[in-house]
């Protein structure tokens, strides 16, 4: 049957156009039908078959991730296999069958019991295994119910991921080489999937709404336009042709911008700034270099912590950081210490239910409480820094005490390495993220006790404007070009420059075309962004004289609303673009 073309509007979260089949990602609903139990032998036979299928699924997953050299994940699947075959599980299932349960109910009850047993252990690390047991229980139950695996593991061919929402742990489960793009029902410009998509350079449209998603069957043909925020389902041949043409045009534009990849970021009159990349691992370091990054302005370390079910060891971390440092050669790399919270908790940290995780136990607050966890990371960073240009920065600082406490632990870590006789980077510069209004207001005392600032504009915007950046309903209020945010940025830069120190920015704003001239004019020294945005940013910087940028900044900061600032900048950008065509 020919299905007619449908167009859905969402938020353009990450540029690019891609055509491909839909992969519907949904946590499977495992509803157990009510039925009378068959004789125990029959029920048990089904259990054995389900265990066999689960073992095969896990084998396939294991070989997939092993091929990707992701040993941490392979080990998880291996543990799952042992759980599937575990005599304790079999015993418990059998006793439920003997009590008259069906195999589905028995498996559910047995895995629930074992999950509870693990969860109730005193040691948080052991308790965290409950997640594995729950996963195994769900896998067996799903197989018993004859439901195909539509979770991330089911992605077997290149496809556009269609989901209600995607958490960071969901997204790490996809094979990166098979993901063509993302579209989600919920979310805004700064939801995690949006940021991830920009980092990976994949198109994404978010906030499409529930309604749209309910009309997209698995494998249906899609066009995802992350530049305009559109999703076309079952496109007509003429639509496909039109998009193919647009894709080509975008590629051509990229070609002319590409000339800037290996140039320095210099204004028309020779004012030099640095343009770096935001990355999460060594693979993207290679990408950063390819797009002309002059350094890494933000190396996220969360992925190391979220990928595994145990905290990464000092050696594991050191290796990971060193791989990035080596890939970047003699370019500087700013390593940000752990920045997680209750919105994306790793399995081994016990979080209480938080009403507002963004104002809760997160980032530096966790690190200052769990000193061993933090010091392990600090030692790993210090050791990796030996012989490389590494810098260290702490996230979410909101007081001078926090900076002092973190620095005290850093001094401890140094001493420990010294007495253990390990080589480490002794002159590592230490900075902080300015991402709370408190840090911006305290810029002067803070910069006296550290070496540099990096503005984290996503959180700075969220905290300044009191707008939850994951809440769709208030998404229009999330305005990084809001005058209040720009004023805090200005204040931060001025305070640092007064002390002869430099300021970078690793938030989304640094790569935003409309913001770059303003930031240049405010005196920002380093811009760090998704690797793919770098060539165009360098081009844009080259279009302005520094005096003109200062004028633009002043003009923008005198406007009372984000809307007027946007309007001003749209005009200025159009001018810059048309001038370059002449």
């Amino acid at each position, binding site marked *: 049957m020919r299905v007619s073309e449908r167009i859905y509007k969402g938020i353009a979260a990450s540029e690019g156009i891609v055509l491909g089949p839909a992969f519907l990602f949904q946590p499977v609903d495992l509803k157990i039908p009510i039925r009378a139990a068959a004789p125990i032998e029959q029920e048990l036979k089904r259990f054995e078959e389900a265990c066999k299928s689960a073992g095969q699924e896990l084998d396939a997953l294991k070989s997939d991730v092993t091929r990707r050299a992701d040993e941490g994940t392979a080990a998880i699947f291996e543990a799952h296999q042992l759980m599937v075959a575990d005599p*304790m599980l079999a015993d418990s299932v059998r006793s439920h069958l003997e009590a008259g349960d069906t195999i589905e109910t028995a498996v559910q009850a047995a895995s629930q019991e074992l999950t509870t047993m693990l969860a109730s252990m005193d040691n948080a690390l052991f308790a965290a*295994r409950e997640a594995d047991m729950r996963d195994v229980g769900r896998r067996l139950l799903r197989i018993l119910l004859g439901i195909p695996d539509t979770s991330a593991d089911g992605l077997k061919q290149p496809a556009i991921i269609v989901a209600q929402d995607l958490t960071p742990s969901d997204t790490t489960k996809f094979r990166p080489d098979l993901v063509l793009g993302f579209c989600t029902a919920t979310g805004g410009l700064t939801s995690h999937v949006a940021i991830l998509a920009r980092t990976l350079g994949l198109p994404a449209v978010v906030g499409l709404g529930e309604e749209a998603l309910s009309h997209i069957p698995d494998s249906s043909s899609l066009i995802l336009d992350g530049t305009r925020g559109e999703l076309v389902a079952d496109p007509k041949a003429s639509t496909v042709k039109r998009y193919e043409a647009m894709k080509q045009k975008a590629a051509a534009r990229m070609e002319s911008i590409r000339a800037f990849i290996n140039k320095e970021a210099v204004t028309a009159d020779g004012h030099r700034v640095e343009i770096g990349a935001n990355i999460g691992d060594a693979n993207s370091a290679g990408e950063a270099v390819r797009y002309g990054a002059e350094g890494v302005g933000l190396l996220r370390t969360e992925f190391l912590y979220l990928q595994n079910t145990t905290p990464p060891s000092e050696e594991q971390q050191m290796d990971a950081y060193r791989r990035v440092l080596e890939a970047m050669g003699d370019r500087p790399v700013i390593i940000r210490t752990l920045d997680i919270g209750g919105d994306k908790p790793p399995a081994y940290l016990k979080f209480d239910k938080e009403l507002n995780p963004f104002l809760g136990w997160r980032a530096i607050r966790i690190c200052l409480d769990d000193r061993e966890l933090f010091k392990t990371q600090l030692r790993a960073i210090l050791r990796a820094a030996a012989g490389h240009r590494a810098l260290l920065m702490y996230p979410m600082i909101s007081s001078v005490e926090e900076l002092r406490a973190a620095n005290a632990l850093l001094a401890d870590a140094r001493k420990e390495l010294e007495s253990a006789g390990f080589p480490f980077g002794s002159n590592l510069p230490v900075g902080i993220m300015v991402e709370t209004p408190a840090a911006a207001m305290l810029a002067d005392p803070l910069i006296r006790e550290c070496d540099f600032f990096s503005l984290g504009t996503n959180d700075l915007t969220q905290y300044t404007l009191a707008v939850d950046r994951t809440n769709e309903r208030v998404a229009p209020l999330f305005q990084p070009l809001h005058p209040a945010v720009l004023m805090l940025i200005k204040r931060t830069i001025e305070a640092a420059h007064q002390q002869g120190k430099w300021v970078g920015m690793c938030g989304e704003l640094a790569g935003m075309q409309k913001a770059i001239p303003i930031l240049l004019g405010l005196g920002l020294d380093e811009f760090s962004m998704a690797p793919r945005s770098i060539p165009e940013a360098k081009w844009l910087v080259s279009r302005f004289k520094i005096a003109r940028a200062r004028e633009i900044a002043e003009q923008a900061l005198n406007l009372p609303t984000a809307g007027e600032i946007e309007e001003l900048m749209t005009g200025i950008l159009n001018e810059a673009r048309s001038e370059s065509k002449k």
Partner: protein
Amino acid sequence: MQEISIIVHNKVGLHARPAALFVQIAMAHQSGITVIKGEKTGNAKSILSILALGVNQDDKITIRADGPDEAGALEKLAKLVAEDFGECG
């Protein structure tokens, strides 16, 4: 029947990867193998049972094997523990 007592030195105890390796080696042997920590006893061929023992760093465990390949089983398991599970975490 033979047994051996040993202290677990690696950082996370008998947890995650170490527990998995331990169980895999136990499963490769015919002998019945149990692990004893304090008053608790676990089946060395069950990862859930091993996890439930909650063996932490510096805990003392006793491994007991009973069967045709008991000596070899104990030797291999003790070696794994003594070598900190190949520092696998």
